[in-house]
């Protein structure tokens, strides 16, 4: 199934070449061109050491550093690390003949599959130019008739409570008298989304956990289990129960502030996961409770869930296992009937519904699925929120949206559309160093993120990474406060579902109807 994308053309390492490398003749053009300014190159060999794809090499005969552009994945590690900025990585100027229907990407993928007969794998999120509806929504601001608020001078509330809210509460002597379902207080409506240890390195998960602890929010273990070292971050941990049930045991469930049942993932709705055996190191195998070096395969469905009734059984099994102490979340991919499914999930007893849009990231997915299956999160979120309101059950659940949240404005728009909080995953990895080269599945991540190779994983210093994550989320929090203040709102709770604060530009009337917003100018 997996395509060996990077043939080892390094003549200095003949032992690593397989017979198939000699036999398969590639018709593919290099995707990237490596340009080296020889006036600037000081031959320090930093690029050679930093590239796990064997692009750069020293030509002893000519005493020059040279390159093999056919191996380049465009991660820009060499260009960033070069002390003299001598390297630039650009799209290969030699492109396939321009064609309105058969793009270079189609030609390249056909060639890859003609060579190997496999599924084209990819990583990261959907990179196609489908419209991003966040960019077609504009936020309101106050002028004259309602004063705006300066968040630097006046209190501004981003605190968010995750968990089901009762339809009514009793207050006695100024105190809450009715029993509340479990709630989690987080300091801003931003959570780190599910990224498993195995897909990412130990250092990156550690950095994310520490950042969540410092920020007062939550991170999600993904389906990879919880490493023994990370139990100390239990007050900030969401543990996931996915179809593979990797690493699920009573201590795991009880170490968490929230348990999440993963039904689907935005990047690959309807299919399971596959962590290649090469990434199952000793530490990953202990955490996942599987033998070392074996492929970790998550089935497409959860084999004990074929109906909402089955889902209800698992939700309550997990609630029993955790003594009704923590909220239980159900994460689904944004698909066509997400609204009806979400309604069923709420009725099944979930405290949280997480919806993952089709721009969400992944460590590995078939490209055909990543780029073609699912829905933009904007529509799914608006449809789910509206459906739950219409049925009078919106209060019973916290709605978390994820999959393509790129900036603070996206978060404000998501909350105005009806989300309670958002999950960020790709944005967090970009903060750590990811350059979206989409080779996560190869295990050769030059930035030390999506790899278990100890030589590469060291490239993330968890202390630096944690600080960068904290800075990012704090920066976004400041921006959210500024935008709230501009609208004259002093609490994120007041923005929730307030679609009147949004206007659409360049949207059809059907799109405006689904989003529940009015066109700009009205």
């Amino acid at each position: 199934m997996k395509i060996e994308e990077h043939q080892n053309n390094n003549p200095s390492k003949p032992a690593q070449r397989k017979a198939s490398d000699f036999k398969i003749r590639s018709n593919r053009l290099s995707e990237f061109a490596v340009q080296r300014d020889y006036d600037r190159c000081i031959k320090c060999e930093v690029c050679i050491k930093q590239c796990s794809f064997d692009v750069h090499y020293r030509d002893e005969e000519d005493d020059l550093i040279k390159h093999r552009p056919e191996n380049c994945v465009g991660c820009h590690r060499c260009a960033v690390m070069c002390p003299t900025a001598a390297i630039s990585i650009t799209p290969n100027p030699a492109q396939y003949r321009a064609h309105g229907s058969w793009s270079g990407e189609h030609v390249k993928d056909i060639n890859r599959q003609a060579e190997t007969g496999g599924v084209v794998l990819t990583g990261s999120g959907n990179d196609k130019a489908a419209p991003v509806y966040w960019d077609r929504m504009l936020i309101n601001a106050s002028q004259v008739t309602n004063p705006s608020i300066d968040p630097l001078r006046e209190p501004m509330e981003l605190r968010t409570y995750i968990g089901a809210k009762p339809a009514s509460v009793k207050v006695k002597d100024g105190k809450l008298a009715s029993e509340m379902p479990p709630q989690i207080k987080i300091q801003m409506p931003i959570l780190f989304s599910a990224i498993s240890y195995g897909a990412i390195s130990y250092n990156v998960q550690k950095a994310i956990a520490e950042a969540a602890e410092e920020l007062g929010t939550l991170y999600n273990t993904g389906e990879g289990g919880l490493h023994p070292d990370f139990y100390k971050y239990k007050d900030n941990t969401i543990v996931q129960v996915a179809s593979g049930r990797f690493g699920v045991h009573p201590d795991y469930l009880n170490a968490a502030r929230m348990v999440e049942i993963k039904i689907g993932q935005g990047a690959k709705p309807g299919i399971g996961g596959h962590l290649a055996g090469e990434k199952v190191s000793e530490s990953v195998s202990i955490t996942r409770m599987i033998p070392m070096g074996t492929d970790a395969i998550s089935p497409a469905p959860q084999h004990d869930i074929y109906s909402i009734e089955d889902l209800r059984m698992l939700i309550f099994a997990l609630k029993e296992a955790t003594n009704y102490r923590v909220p239980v979340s159900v994460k689904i991919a944004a698909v066509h009937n997400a609204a009806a499914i979400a309604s069923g999930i709420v009725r099944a007893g979930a405290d949280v519904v997480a919806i993952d849009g089709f721009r969400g990231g992944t460590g590995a997915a078939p490209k055909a699925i990543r780029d073609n299956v699912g829905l933009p999160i904007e529509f799914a979120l608006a449809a789910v929120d509206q459906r739950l309101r219409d049925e009078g059950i919106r209060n019973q659940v916290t709605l978390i949206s994820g999959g393509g949240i790129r900036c603070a404005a996206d978060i404000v728009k998501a909350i105005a559309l009806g989300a309670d909080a958002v999950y960020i995953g790709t944005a967090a990895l970009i903060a750590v160093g990811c350059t979206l080269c989409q080779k996560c599945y190869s295990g050769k991540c030059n930035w030390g993120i999506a790899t278990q190779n100890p030589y590469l994983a060291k490239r993330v210093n968890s202390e630096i990474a944690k600080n960068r994550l904290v800075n990012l989320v704090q920066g976004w929090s400041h921006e959210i406060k500024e935008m709230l203040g501009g609208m004259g709102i002093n609490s994120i709770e007041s923005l929730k579902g307030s679609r009147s604060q949004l206007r659409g530009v360049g949207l059809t009337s059907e799109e405006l109807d689904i989003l529940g917003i009015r066109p700009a100018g009205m």
Partner: protein
Amino acid sequence: MWRIRAIPEVCIGCGLCRVWCKVEHSDSKNIHKAFKPNAPETISCVELEESGCESFAMQCRQCDEPLCAYGCITGAMTKDPDTGLVTVDKKKCVGCWTCILMCPNGVIKRDERNGRSAIKCDLCKDRGFPSCVEHCPNDALVIEESPMNPLAAHSAPLSGSSRGDENILFSEEVDDDE
């Protein structure tokens, strides 16, 4: 006293410490000129030690018991009692290489570019802050202040950023021996 400490757990073996050490110890202090094919040879006072996935930068640790200075036959190698910095006076050094034999870390090198003299890490005293520490992309080199006591040699790290410009070790201009 100030000394550089290497952290192997986060050293990525890129070798930028070596590059920037050479630049700092070149005549021009310019990376392009220092590495020109016909530029005068420059010597890096830091070496990258590597074995498999493990690596760390090795430069003078400014020992509390400076064996190099004890062994020096001319008094060229001295440890400043105030700053703790071990330096070589090129005017006095005769190039007998006793210091190289004495150094337990193997961080003193021969400088035969202009006569014979030993050369070693001087914590970039002309620059104010060690160039290797500043340019380390993963904070695998830190400079820390520790008292001159072998038992406390690896005490608390320097507070705040170890890479910031605010940590100027040598605020006064130090007269160059040349």
